[in-house]
């Protein structure tokens, strides 16, 4: 899996490309938690090029959401493919995670 990190007017953007499973989730966890410990309070995770997610990936998203809330920050998730979004729905995570349709919607939230 490839993770591209960008910074745009104080917002850290993580673009995920490929498959987020128990084999690749650790690398993503390290990157997102590095950003949080470096003081980032506004995060966007872009799922546009993510083809697959398992519970290991959901776990990282949940942990990061909890961590960023403790810092009074905010995380937005955007541009999910249908199959990926369905996994969030099966897990019930769509009820409390901020999932929006596009990157623009995500950036507008800050």
């Amino acid at each position, binding site marked *: 899996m490839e993770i591209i990190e960008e910074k745009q007017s104080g917002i850290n953007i993580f673009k995920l490309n490929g*498959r987020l*499973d*128990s*084999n690749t989730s650790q690398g993503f966890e390290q990157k997102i938690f590095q950003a949080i410990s470096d003081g980032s309070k506004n995060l966007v995770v872009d799922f546009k090029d993510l083809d*697959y997610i*398992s*519970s*290991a990936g*959901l*776990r990282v998203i*949940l*942990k990061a*959401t*909890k961590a960023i*809330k403790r810092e009074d920050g905010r995380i937005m998730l955007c541009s999910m493919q249908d*199959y990926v979004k369905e*996994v969030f729905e*099966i*897990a*019930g*995570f769509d*009820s*409390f*995670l901020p999932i929006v349709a596009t990157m623009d919607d995500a950036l507008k939230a800050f």
Partner: protein
Amino acid sequence: MAKKEYSFELKSSLSELDNLCLNLETLGEKIGLPKKLVFEINLALDELFTNIISYGFSDEDEHTIKVTITPQNDEICLCIEDDGIPFNPIEFDTPDVACSVENCKVGGLGIHIMRKLMDDICYQRCGDKNILTLKKNLAKDET
């Protein structure tokens, strides 16, 4: 229609998830399974496989996990076989999914997802093997 079986083996390492995906994509193309179905089969088997690797073995030896897939007229049958400690995912308590960020527990989430994706699950312990048979109805996944 004669039942045809497709099977492959995975080693007990998380890096084998790539092989699982590759095997399923190849099979999906060969027998013309819808992409959504391949995704769901992959996810269910991934969650089980990850669970077996994470909790199933008490030694450091390399083990083999065997996957057999039998497509039938209106359902697809998946069988996953390992020689790890006895584990019956049907008896496993799944998390309460309707919760807030603060209260959400992540333990058991993978098994919960696997059970939601499949229509029928059967567990057998045969000798030193766990044999889990999953069935997925095809009718509602035509698209």
